[in-house]
């Protein structure tokens, strides 16, 4: 089984092309788990409900998990809107780059 940290590392290869940061840095990945059948579920949100790349980003996350963690059989994304994303969830680098400091 893969740890939460390993799954987060895999997902961090996905970059939001609009802002140029990866999804983990942005704080968009809320949780991740892997069961004994090597099925991974990533719980995530998006920075806005109207994100035009909604479906593609979900697809990229699933592909990244399958690509970076070769033993994974199935990768699924659970897209949630609660709690809603806000800038405090992003890491310090993102806050600084976006000018929120």
């Amino acid at each position, binding site marked *: 089984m893969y740890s939460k940290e390993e799954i987060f590392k895999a997902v961090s290869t996905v970059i939001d092309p609009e802002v*140029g940061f990866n999804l983990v840095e942005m704080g968009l990945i809320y949780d991740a788990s892997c069961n004994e059948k090597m099925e991974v579920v990533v719980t995530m949100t998006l920075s806005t*409900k109207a*994100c035009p790349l909604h479906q593609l980003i979900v697809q990229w996350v699933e592909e990244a998990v399958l690509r970076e963690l070769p033993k994974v059989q199935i990768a699924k994304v659970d897209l949630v809107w609660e709690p809603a994303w*806000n800038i405090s969830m992003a890491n310090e680098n993102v806050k600084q780059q976006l000018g929120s400091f």
Partner: protein
Amino acid sequence: MNISTAFAPPFKLVAPFFIIGVSTFVVTILLMFGFEFENLHYFNSSTLAWVHIFLLAFVMLIILGAMAQLIPVVLEVGHLAVDLYYAIYPLMILGTLLMAFGFYNLPILLPFGGVTVLIALFIFLIETFLTILKVKKINFIISTIIISNIFLLLGVIIGIALALNYSGIFSFDSFKLLKAHIFLVFFGYVGTTVMSMSLILLPMFWLSHSFTWVYVKTAFILLCFSICFMLFFTFSSITLVEDIAYTLCISSLFLYFLQIFVIYKKRVRVEVDIYFKSMLFSYFSLFTSLSLFFIYFFYSKDNLLLCASWLLFVGFIGFLISGHLYKIVPFLVWYERFSIFVGKKRVPMLNDLIPKKSSNFQFLNSSIGVIIVSLSFLLESDTLYKSGLCFLTLGVIFLLKDILYMAKIKEETYVF
């Protein structure tokens, strides 16, 4: 709200709307060199021709192109028949040309131009309404689209009546109908569409969260009442109703401005890119324009009205559109040509597709141009007017160059 990117129309369908629209923007600025400054404020045929070219072949084409992309975002369903959009822009261009010639030389062409535009817009409206029928739940933004499209339909029908009158086929006092036409099309369609699309686009591009929508919702309701009052005035002679319509319209736009300020204050993303600068200038123009309209209420000086209209058209609408084009075109190009390489190869960010130096040069010249022309109206100086137009011409030519550059970006340039 979730968009299905599978519903997005191909770039080759949307691109002509943007490219032809911006080309028309260049043409309208060049046409302004031919105006006699003293007669500009009158409703002469040249002014009417210019307004229709600007609104139909620049503003409406860009809005229709953007709506092709945004309707699936808002409705969360695919277009019923997106290929119909291939028929819309040729008809819009033909209709605009006929109307322009009609205003300049041959008034008999006006009804033909008007009907051609009506057919184009009718195709758009039918496609949109039939697409809306696929939606299971109507939310606030969808209801704004329905209402704005009804206003557009009514506005174009009144426009046809005006064209028949102008060409001599009918004979009636058209001044009241003209006001209803302006209110229905400009405020009723363009205004409400800008308001409702702002609800989606601004928070998305500025990463703004956790704010109230009460101002824009109130603004929308006030604007709808304003248009209804103006329609009522058209068929009655109660001037109080007309005054109420104006007051509600200006109040609505001030409330919209307040909403924008609230979104701006809550933004996370504070980088000063071409989009941000264009938006700031656009809203600054709107605020100044509204203030001038307000002053005009009391002083009734034509140059105030002219300056306010100029700032509303070119300062607000022009910069609002150009700013959004620097977001929408790179996104569409990136989505079509680069998204397939994600996870496989290194791909550019959206920001990498924007020609930064050129876009900044465009913004600088366009903004200086708009400011100088505004001053020329207030000071009634022909020299200032022409020099302002020179700056603006340079700006809009660079805007066109940037749009063409972004639309032509190929995969080989960035993906190795």
